[in-house]
């Protein structure tokens, strides 16, 4: 592939966005002009305000979403009771859960993966468990977590933990097991000892692979938190999406999707930076 100037790509991106939003806006305008007449007047009376919109909640236009986004972002951290909190607070709750679950998973998975990678016996012994548990949807753990932990918030963190542990565990074990033989031989001829070899040779050699696992994990964790919070409720961006669905505020849901995407991107980029930092090139 040929390299293209960044500004060209950016310009095209903006153009695509403009066309997409413009088409969306126009399609809704055309739709609104056509419909809305065939409603039973009595039903309209029952529905009240909603009847003016033809009995349906209209899909919000990009311009309306932008207005709503401005409203939300002007005061993202307000708290007016348990069911009315700013979008910033909700994202912060989700981020907190994800980071906590992810960190606990990293603390467990990286040392364990290290040991598994160093010991072919443990690797073979634990492999069946990992293979069976890895493909399980993390949400399947939710009932068990709720039953044993009896706390919905901690259960959500547990679900994040259980979903982010596998990629980190497997990548760490793989990276450690595949450290170049010759580097290990160098360490051996230098009588480097177990700890020095582990920290000065194996860890840096496996670090890029470990970071890849961490990047996959945080991506999955951020995917799962939305679903988990829809289930456990209370706070968080997932709960907020569900709440706005119940309120039929579609604009808020579109905004939430945008937020989830941006935060996910930021998390990935953050780990990408760390990955660049530990990367080595032959």
């Amino acid at each position, binding site marked *: 592939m040929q390299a293209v100037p960044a500004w060209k790509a950016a310009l095209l991106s903006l153009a695509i966005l403009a066309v997409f939003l413009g088409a969306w806006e126009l399609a809704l305008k055309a739709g609104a002009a056509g419909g809305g007449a065939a409603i039973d007047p009595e039903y309209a009376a029952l529905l009240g305000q909603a009847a003016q919109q033809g009995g349906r909640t209209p899909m919000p236009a990009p311009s309306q979403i932008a207005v709503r986004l401005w409203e939300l972002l002007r005061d993202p951290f307000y708290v007016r009771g348990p069911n009315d909190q700013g979008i910033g607070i909700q994202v912060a709750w989700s981020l907190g859960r994800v980071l906590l679950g992810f960190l606990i998973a990293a603390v467990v998975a990286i040392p364990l993966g290290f040991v598994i990678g160093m010991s072919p016996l443990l690797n073979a012994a634990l492999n069946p468990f990992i293979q069976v548990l890895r493909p399980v949807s993390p949400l399947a753990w939710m009932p068990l977590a709720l039953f044993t932990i009896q706390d919905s918030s901690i259960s959500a963190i547990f679900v994040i933990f259980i979903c982010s542990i596998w990629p980190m565990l497997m990548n760490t074990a793989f990276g450690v097991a595949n450290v170049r033989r010759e*580097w290990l031989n*160098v360490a*051996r*001829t*230098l*009588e*480097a000892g177990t700890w*020095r070899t582990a920290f000065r040779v194996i860890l840096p*050699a496996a670090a890029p692979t470990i970071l890849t696992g961490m990047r996959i994990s945080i991506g999955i964790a951020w995917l799962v938190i939305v679903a988990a919070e829809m289930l456990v409720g209370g706070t968080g961006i997932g709960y907020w999406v569900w709440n706005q669905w119940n309120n039929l505020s579609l604009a808020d849901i579109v905004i939430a999707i945008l937020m989830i995407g941006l935060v996910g991107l930021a998390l990935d980029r953050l780990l990408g930076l760390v990955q660049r930092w530990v990367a*080595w090139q032959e």
Partner: protein
Amino acid sequence: MKPYVSVEGIARRFPGLTVFQDVWFGIARGEFVCLVGHSGCGKTTILNILAGLDSPSDGGVVVDGQEITGPALDRAVVFQGHALMPWLTAEQNVGFALSCRKPGWGRARLREEARAVLAKVGLEHAADRKPAMLSGGMKQRVGIARALAVQPKMMLMDEPFSALDALTRGSLQEEVSRLTTEAGQTAFMITHDVDEAILLADRILLMTNGPEARIAEVLVNTLPRPRIRATLHHQPGYHGLRDHIMDFLVTRSRTLAGAPPEGYDPRDPPIVRLAE
């Protein structure tokens, strides 16, 4: 009295295959010994056994009166593919080796000493570069510096220059010749470059082809030191040595492979000293 290093009847056997067996030789303190032979005769295995990275199926190696059981700082290895850690700079690669030898040294001391060793191989200016930013010859220089840094009693080199172009190889050979002669370094090197062996070695072990390879004879290098690579081929006796090794590699390594000649004693292979 036993030589400093005594290789005693080592063999490498796989089920149904004996790569080499009954290999006996010694290396005196301060001596430079080269092992020459075709691929597949188990040269690298012999070096790895000397390094302690591998163990023989039979026999053993005694260094300084002690049978070796594993790798040790006393025996530094220069690996064929340099084996530098790509995440460390040249200086840190050498520093890592130093820190293994001198666990008590602080960062500043390690830095300083690592730079001093790099200066010995003419790489002070590249100390802060990572291996990816070094040429093949420079990488191998760092590999040599790393081995020298631990002040080993013996240097083991596994075809250290085989991946380099002829010019670079030449200057590195001279460098190694200078460094080992200066320090009276005991060294064992595997090579299949005939000139390299003649330039560096005091004695050249000639190995027959595998399987069941053995040391066919020991060629004494009678060329006086210091040897200069540029003028080596003008030295009297050079062509005799070269022809002898070439003949061995081309034909005798093969013809001698199967059956040892009458009166061959693996513990004391014939010593060849060419007449001047």
